[in-house]
């Protein structure tokens, strides 16, 4: 067990290191530096700036310094916005994205499991077909298409909610719906197929034969085992919601990290692009690590011998 966790942790660190190094060297490959501007800076000032930011040192020293800064949570300063710390920008805008993301995750898990459960219980009946058609639609229709359709119908035509903004609870409805459609559909499909398997298992027959009520059977026996695959999907789901939020925040005018990312890319503000990329990378890799470990805890059938399987 300890070996398994250590092994996964080691992998996570290596991947992070690869991502950070790739980010650094790719950005170094771009011609010019933060002080290449339309207005020519006098050479003395340029030299002074280079010294202050360590740009006069050889690349490998810059690299080590960069790594050291990231470990301390320092992502450098924005190139386009005067005196703005990248980590400050991230921490300022993260709360909006976090709220949106967490609500979307909760909604996806609850509705996805419910839909999958209903579909499995009414296997090959109307509810099953309807749920699975919804699931295929949810997986195939891109989130930005869904977002614009929702915006058009419910905000522009019906006027039930605001077109943009992110202030009162009602503003959550459309972005969350658009963001969680795909994960919900995926979870519904996962839950359905694993529950169908569980429903035919011998221990369910035993439970029925013991005369347990169906509620106890459903929640204690079927659901507990049936939602195990959903745990493995939590990592990819977070990735899905994070990348999805980049577009959704833009469409609904939510001032989160995703919006900062898009703006930084459009003006090529490299320190912010690097900072947010690495921040997203850490976020997603840690989530993946946590779900990998969590899966072993929730599934008692997995007996780990050494660190090879996984």
């Amino acid at each position: 067990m300890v070996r398994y966790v250590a092994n996964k942790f080691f992998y996570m660190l290596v991947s992070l290191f690869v991502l950070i190094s790739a980010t650094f060297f790719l950005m170094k490959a771009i011609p010019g530096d933060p002080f290449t501007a339309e207005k020519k800076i006098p050479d003395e000032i340029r030299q002074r700036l280079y010294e202050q930011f360590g740009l006069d040192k050889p690349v490998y020293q810059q690299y080590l310094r960069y790594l050291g800064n990231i470990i301390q949570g320092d992502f450098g300063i924005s190139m386009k916005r005067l005196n703005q710390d990248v980590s400050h920008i991230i921490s300022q805008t993260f709360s909006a994205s976090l709220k949106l993301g967490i609500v979307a995750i909760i909604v996806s898990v609850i509705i996805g499991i419910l839909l999958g459960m209903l579909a499995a219980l009414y296997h090959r009946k109307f509810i099953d077909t309807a749920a699975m058609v919804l699931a295929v639609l949810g997986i195939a229709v891109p989130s930005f298409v869904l977002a614009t359709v929702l915006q058009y119908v419910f905000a522009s035509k019906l006027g039930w909610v605001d077109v943009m903004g992110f202030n009162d609870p009602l503003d959550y409805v459309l972005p969350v719906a658009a963001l969680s459609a795909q994960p919900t559909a995926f979870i519904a499909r996962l839950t359905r197929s694993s529950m169908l398997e569980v429903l035919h298992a011998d221990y369910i027959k035993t439970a029925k034969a013991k005369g347990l009520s169906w509620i106890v059977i459903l929640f204690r026996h079927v659901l507990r085992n049936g939602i195990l695959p959903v745990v493995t999907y939590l990592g990819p789901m977070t990735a899905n919601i994070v990348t999805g939020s980049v577009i959704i925040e833009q469409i609904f005018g939510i001032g989160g990290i995703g919006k900062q990312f898009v703006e930084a890319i459009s003006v090529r503000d490299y320190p912010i692009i690097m900072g947010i990329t690495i921040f997203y990378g850490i976020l997603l890799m840690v989530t993946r690590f946590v779900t990998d470990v969590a899966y072993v805890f929730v599934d008692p059938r997995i007996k780990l011998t050494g660190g090879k399987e996984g």
Partner: protein
Amino acid sequence: MASEQHMVPPGVNLKPEDFRKIGVDEKQAEVISRESLSAWQDAWQRLRQNKMAMASLGLLVLVILGAIIGPHLTPYTYDSNDLLNTNQPPSGAHWFGTDDLGRDMFVRTWYGARISLIVGLAAALIDLLIGVVYGGIMGFFGGRTDSIMNKISEVLYSIPYLLVVILLLVVLEPSLWTIILALTITGWINMSWIVRGEIMQLKNREYVLASRSMGASSNRLLFKHLLPNAIGPIIVTVTLSVPNAIFAEAFLSFLGLGVQAPKASLGSMISDALTGWLAFPWRMLFPAILISVTMLAFNIFGDGLRDALDPKLKK
């Protein structure tokens, strides 16, 4: 007996000549009475019974035909603007209306579909090529080779896919080919794992042992025996990775890293239409429908293909 009389329906007259003694001929048991079907014909028959999958196939053919001939059906080109007729609703002259530079939306939508399909198909094919070679080597040689190669792919895989793509395109200027390159840089890993799994499972079969004991080379084993038998899951993975690539390109368009104007993809058209689309919904409508239909059809067709190629998996 009364009951026996009822066994012959009224109006049927059976005479003794209608009966013939067939006896028991053991050789008859070996006779093949139906035409034998290859695995492909078998799969095709199963696929044909899946109405949703066949409808999706039909839609895909239509979309592909539209992408090929659509841009040539009107007198306009994808980049000819007409600043006197901007943001026009659909009409006889412009079937899908015009955009903010007065470009014909019908031509641009189909042209965009063409670019999106090229990106999706090219990315899927390159993933296939790299994935089969890499996964084939991992699965076939096993042992230390497999362990090292698998660790490399695992490290690469755990770096979030779209972040790598974004980083690359920020550095390389976006064009059709750099987009495809960026999409494939870690996109092949999934395919390599599928191939690896299949090969590992297949290489212990008796026919491989038989071929090996007759002195077949590694190449022959791999290309003659292992890969052809692993082709089912490979095809399904390719089919399902096309819509992913199309989506990824659309996502990049939202970041301004997709196909650059005046060229268009379905994603970049939707992204362009976002400004003021509540006033000009048709600019959003047609590309959005087309991209949804295409992705839906690829997904359903891929699912159907999986069921047809491997009926054991069907639930």
